[in-house]
């Protein structure tokens, strides 16, 4: 197969272990690249600093979900028991907040959990049917014992030679160009 007229997605470099990956990530960041990412079979701690990531937005999404659940549940119960169809049950007050607590709590947790899960997938742009990286056979190791960095072509500073050079300096064991399609 030839590599003619295929647009480059980016350049992928493999490293031996988490330590080297982190160091490399730091170099990449310091060299001013933004559109890059590192890939590992497990989250490596300290990587967020190395890559200079901002805190995740997820917390706010979950808060919203939780509030929705709480207010929704409370509103439903108060409306139903107090206004929509009030019934004399055991001579208790129609609107009887203490007995609403368990359900309110459960609904809060439920909606928060939905928000957390689906919010996370959304932030990660998952599910995703295809990813150019999967064109690279070696990238399979990323879920096993491989440690990769990929600088994407979309980055302003991107130039194949610069990037390859950077990777070689940082001690990559393999460097490979990733194309959008095979």
């Amino acid at each position, binding site marked *: 197969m030839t590599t003619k007229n295929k647009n480059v997605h980016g350049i992928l470099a493999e490293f*031996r*272990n*988490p330590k*080297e990956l*982190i160091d490399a990530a730091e170099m990449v960041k310091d060299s001013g690249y933004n559109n890059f*990412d*590192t*890939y*590992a*079979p*497990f*989250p*490596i*701690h300290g*990587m*967020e600093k190395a*890559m200079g*990531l901002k805190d*995740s937005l*997820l*917390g706010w999404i*979950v808060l919203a979900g939780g509030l929705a659940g709480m207010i929704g549940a409370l509103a439903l*119960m108060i409306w*139903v*028991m107090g206004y*929509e*169809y009030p019934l004399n049950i*055991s001579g*208790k007050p129609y609107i*009887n907040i203490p*007995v*609403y607590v*368990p*359900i309110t709590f*459960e*609904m809060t*947790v*439920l909606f*928060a*959990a*939905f928000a*957390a*899960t689906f919010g*996370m*997938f959304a*932030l*990660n742009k*998952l*599910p*995703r049917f*295809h*990813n150019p*990286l*999967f064109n690279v056979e070696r*990238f*399979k190791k*990323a*879920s*096993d*014992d491989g440690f990769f960095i990929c600088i994407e072509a979309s980055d302003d500073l991107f130039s194949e030679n610069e990037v390859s050079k950077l990777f070689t300096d940082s001690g990559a064991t393999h460097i490979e160009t990733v194309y959008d399609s095979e």
Partner: protein
Amino acid sequence: MSKNYEYVPEPKLIKGDHTFGSITNLIAKTPLSSTPKLWYLAFAVANLLLIILLGSVGYLIWDGIGIWGLNNPAGWGWAIINFVWWVGIGHAGTLISAILFLFRQGWRTAINRFAEAMTIFAVMCAGLFPAIHVGRIWVIYWVFPIPNQMGVWPNFSSPLLWDVFAVSTYFTVSLLFWYVGLVPDFATLRDKAKSKAAKITYGIAALGWTGSFRNWWNYEKAYMILAGLATPLVLSVHTIVSFDFAVSLIPGWHSTIFPPYFVAGAIYSGFAMVLSLMLVARKIYGLEEIMNIDIMEKMNLVMMVTGNLVAFAYLTEGFVAWYSGYIYEQGIFWLYVVGPYAWGFWILMFCNVITPQFLWSKSIRRNVTLTFIISIIVNIGMWFERFMIAVVSLSTDFMPSSWDYYSPTLWDILIYVGTFGLFFTFFLLFLRFMPMVAIAEVKGVMPQADPHNYDEETNDFIEARAEPTMANQQTVQQKSE
């Protein structure tokens, strides 16, 4: 004299000499290799039980609740006992994956996947009972607040309704939690898989996970939040289950000690069940190095503590019955001990109070066979605990004239046995097709995973310098000379 200190690292979480790759292969080989004969055999047995379950539930719906041994004072019997028992068991998984996660207990990674799976299937078994125990199952959906032409709504002050919400929420959240944990491992299986079918299936399940750290970054946040949500949830569920009893006014039910006592009992039985399953699975699937003796001992310690909490609750009940001067409470407690169901009480005492005391001995805690036996006994004991609470309190309450003796029928028993079919059918499918250990998380707690364990110059991994992983606190000991 001079003191000097030395660092004694905790025992390694993963025994043997493992690399990331070897871990992957060890765990991924089961789902990706061909099915062993033994599995088919086990699956057949499970299916048989499942058919028994479906058959007897069918007959129940056809003929009516009357086929059970229920009577006028005892409106609840085995169905509710089994419900509480299964839900209780269902607590271990989320507890292990959520609470231990928050407490940074690295050893959880060896069993959390396994335990969560058990949780989900146990809760499925549990959820079956409230559904089928009603007189008119075809209108069971009336317990959900669905707008309807009659304009009537559920009664939100009923503990039973709280239960509906609690259990369904618990099931959903556990499922989400479990799946979130599974995604990276599905990716691993996707990449390891040889057959096209496997590639596609696991590929879909993995949602296109790449292991990108930007994803890991949100992922870990989500995982942390889910753990944070699941922790109060897991405590709330059995609390609310206990409300079914505690909020009523039946002597033996109407008791403020129930929520903590139920939660302790739940953890107790949950860990017992995890142990029973784990000790078998680790042997069959050769995972001794991951689900190792250290972990078993840790779980035994949890069992010992919760077991004694439960025992303490029994004592407290007795004391309160006497101290309250409430004749009905005294009556029911006396009936526990010497009444027509006393046999149940003494079985309970043996299983739940005597048995855990053996766990004070380290050698027993580290003995696989004994641990297995104890875990079984504990589960029997926890079933009888619910039996005493549900049946005895009901059949001998305020009005002696209405006292009646409850005894189960064949159908009670078949349905209970049948739920094991449901449980194991799913559990075997899980063992066969899913990574039974959280691959990514295990890797995460291996010393190699920590950049600090590498030589600054050569970037080589230095075993000797292995510092505690994120989960291992340093323990300081005084060395005497």
